[in-house]
């Protein structure tokens, strides 16, 4: 259990900036100014930027949700016109899925994967920065349609044809939808390839795949889903865009085209997307629940394999979104069965979380409350999901508020609550101070009461026959009371979110007067807790050699002769000091940002004027070449997978994390 004092033997190359070869901009040399953030390739800073941007769009999407609920609070209101209402709910869905939950999960993935596997950075740090900036440019692009496109997209987030065609959606909203999602999709594909390579290739010595924390496993499955689901929506979006911009005939029924093609392509992407949203949250609570139950996770391998099973089976259920599309009885029966099957691995996970808590010394911190809330709410959502698997019942439920209730229980209850719990859990690791627990618990109760008030009544509304996506309803159908309750609930959630931001703000101010949380405030189990809080720029002074699951726990605890757990080292003894000063880190780069500026220009060009495409294209292509030419001996580690003429794979400093032999490592 020795602490490793000796420095890692890595060649350092400072002061090689004398002459500046082609392709390099002046890069900041370490610091905390805005230029450092804009050019950062540090996975932790990129993770923080993902998180901050995601929270911003959470507020945007939340404001849209409140507009929807305000319109529906009472019957026959004229607060929003039907057209604006269509745009608002479409943008609410897009924002929450693509601009909030996915990037917030990406924030956790970026920050935590390298730390949990014992690496110094991701495999391609510059590509990581590229993913973030391109995602952000796509997010801004989609929202710019409010100003430039004559309003947002008005076709729902699934944007079924022929509603998405020029005939029924004449503004540029759907064009912005298609191009914006293409940009965001590009970013996500790049990010997923990067993180898969990171997990497969850069684990610390001894960190075999089946010693990885469950969170890393779930994020790995998520990245595979992203990598293989997004190309399908890319195809669909190109077809849609070609239809709208170049008058092709993919979705025009008059010309003999089949609108079901869109539905299939969309949901082949869209259903794995559901698991892309939920699996990171599953991973997060799989870290939190064992920590606060003081027990190892129950059935680790079942946990991992059920996650993998969900990843595979998620590809075989897409048509349950289309039971009323006329896909025929055999398809309906097959997809009905596969949908029931996918409840099995999910049920295994729920059982394992409960069994982890069973008999544990449970400590109800805010993070734990959110995790338990996630399990409970997701179970409710999962059960209503099984009722959709019964095709005859689904025929009644399709396009009613029952569906809205279901997917909000799953995505908000299962996804968002888990991510919130993760925020409380890793806040000290990321920012070096705790979030106030008392206020955190108020936040939790506001969220969970709010969501049940909002989405619970929607079950009733749906079964009573209130259809989705209508901008108002008449009095006297029995919809009035539950709609009002749902609106009150939505404002409660809004209050909860504001209270979270208030908590974050005040906790930071109070932190000056509180003792620092230290490396391991929760007495947790995985490797990120063995480095100081906040994480030093180089992550690990020395890459640890891993000998078991829950490695960090076993550096603190052992067993005595009677198999009782005994403390063998204090956190101070076992943790790293974060004082290594000779670690060679990848240099920052501005090119990812420049590429991200170029991509929306191409997008605007496709919609408005092809000359803009030329400008954007030159910017992107030029930046890619500049990126490649950025000096090799400068310790830049990123490699473009779409620009393979870089030849510096061998001295990739981040790779040192995976390959270096740490002979001095104690047991």
């Amino acid at each position, binding site marked *: 259990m020795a602490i490793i004092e000796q420095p890692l033997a890595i060649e350092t190359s400072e002061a090689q900036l004398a002459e500046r070869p082609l392709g390099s901009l002046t890069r900041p040399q370490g610091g905390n100014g805005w230029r450092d953030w804009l050019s950062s390739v540090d996975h932790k800073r990129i993770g923080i930027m993902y998180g901050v941007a995601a929270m911003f769009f959470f507020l945007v999407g939340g404001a849209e949700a409140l507009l929807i609920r305000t319109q529906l609070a009472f019957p026959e209101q004229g607060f929003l016109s039907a057209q604006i209402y269509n745009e608002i709910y479409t943008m609410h869905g897009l924002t929450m899925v693509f601009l909030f939950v996915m990037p917030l999960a990406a924030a956790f993935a970026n920050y935590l994967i390298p730390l949990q596997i014992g690496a110094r950075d991701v*495999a*391609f740090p510059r590509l990581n920065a590229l993913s973030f900036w391109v995602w952000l440019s796509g997010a801004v692009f989609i929202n710019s349609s409010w100003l430039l496109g004559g309003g947002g997209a008005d076709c729902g987030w699934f944007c079924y044809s022929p509603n998405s065609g020029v005939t029924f959606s004449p503004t540029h909203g759907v064009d912005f939808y298609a191009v914006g999602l293409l940009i965001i999709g590009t970013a996500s*594909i790049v990010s997923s*390839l*990067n993180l*898969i*390579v990171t997990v*497969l*290739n*850069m*684990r610390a*010595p*001894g960190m*075999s*795949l*089946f*010693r990885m924390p469950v969170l890393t496993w779930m994020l790995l499955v998520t990245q595979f889903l992203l*990598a*293989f*689901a*997004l*190309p*399908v929506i*890319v*195809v*669909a979006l*190109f*077809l849609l865009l*070609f239809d709208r911009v*170049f*008058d*092709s*005939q*993919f979705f*025009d029924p008059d*010309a*003999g*085209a*089949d609108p079901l*093609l869109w539905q299939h*392509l969309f949901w*082949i992407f869209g259903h794995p997307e559901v698991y892309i949203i939920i699996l990171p949250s599953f991973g997060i609570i799989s870290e939190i629940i064992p920590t606060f139950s003081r027990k190892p996770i129950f059935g680790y391998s079942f946990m991992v394999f059920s996650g993998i099973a969900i990843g595979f089976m998620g590809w075989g259920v897409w048509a349950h979104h289309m039971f009323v599309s006329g896909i025929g009885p055999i398809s309906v029966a097959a997809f009905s069965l596969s949908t029931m099957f996918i409840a099995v691995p999910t049920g295994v996970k729920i059982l394992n979380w409960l069994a982890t808590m069973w008999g544990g010394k449970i400590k109800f911190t805010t993070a734990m409350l959110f995790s338990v809330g996630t399990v409970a709410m997701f179970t409710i959502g999962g059960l209503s999901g099984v009722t959709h698997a019964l095709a005859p019942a689904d025929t009644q439920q399709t396009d009613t508020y029952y569906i809205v209730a279901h997917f909000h229980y799953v995505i908000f209850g299962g996804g968002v609550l888990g991510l919130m719990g993760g925020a409380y859990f890793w806040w000290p690791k990321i920012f070096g101070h705790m979030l106030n627990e008392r206020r955190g618990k108020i936040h939790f109760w506001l969220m969970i009461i709010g969501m049940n008030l909002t989405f619970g009544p929607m079950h009733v509304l749906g079964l009573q026959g209130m259809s989705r996506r209508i901008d108002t309803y008449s009095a006297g159908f029995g919809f009035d009371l539950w709609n009002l309750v749902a609106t009150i609930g939505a404002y409660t959630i809004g209050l909860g979110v504001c209270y979270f931001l208030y908590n974050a703000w005040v906790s930071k101010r109070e932190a000056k007067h509180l003792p620092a949380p230290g490396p391991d405030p929760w007495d947790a189990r995985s490797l990120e807790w063995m480095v100081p809080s906040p994480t030093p720029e180089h992550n690990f002074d020395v890459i640890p050699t891993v*000998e078991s699951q829950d490695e960090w726990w076993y550096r603190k605890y052992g067993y005595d002769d009677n198999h009782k757990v005994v403390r063998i080292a204090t956190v101070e003894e076992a943790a790293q000091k974060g004082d290594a000063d000779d670690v060679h880190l990848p240099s920052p780069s501005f090119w990812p940002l420049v590429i991200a500026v170029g991509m929306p220009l191409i997008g605007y060009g496709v919609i408005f004027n092809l000359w803009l495409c030329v400008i954007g294209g030159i910017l992107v292509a030029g930046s890619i*070449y500049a990126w490649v030419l950025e000096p090799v001996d400068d310790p830049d580690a990123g*490699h473009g*997978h*779409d*620009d*393979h*003429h*870089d*030849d510096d*794979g*061998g*001295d*990739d400093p981040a*790779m040192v994390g*995976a*390959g270096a*032999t740490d002979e001095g490592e104690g047991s």
Partner: protein
Amino acid sequence: MTTTSTVAVDTHHDAHQTNTGISNNKLAMWLFLGTECLLFGGLISTYLLYKTRGNGDVLPTDIFDIPFTSVSSFVLLMSSLTMVLALSALNRGEVERSRAWLLTTAMLGGVFVGGQVYEFTTFVREGMGFTTNPASSAFYTLTGFHGVHVSLGILMLMSLVVASVQGKLKAENAETVEIIGLYWHFVDIVWIFIFTVIYLIPAE
């Protein structure tokens, strides 16, 4: 992929020490090609769904020129051979020969793209434009996407040639050529699928 408790360090040539023994760059390329399979899978499915939907107008299968496309397909397949020869030459340290094969590969790719441009213009002249019917839209989109992939491959090959002329491409950079080769072979394999499924199998 290794799940053993020690890092599986592949000791053959230089310092690519990763858990899998495959370098990061190469693994990323393999994964990227995996995502490309889904992209082309979607496009090929779209074409197969729409191939008989002519809306009364001319269908792609009516006007395919199989002998012509066979020749251009053969040219593209031969470019995979020259790609392998380029890599093999660089592995042996024969930089100039490698450069010549890279250039040949790019030129063969150029012949293929040129053939595609000729084919497209002929088809348009024969009355099948991009917007004529769902079948034509799907045909041009699928083969167009493939053509763009070949063109990007040519761009990468020419960048390698330039790097080689500048003396930056040596035997130790063989893996870069290998990775671009992976992309190039993938694009060829996709074409084998397209040529067989789209051109050779007749619409009933």
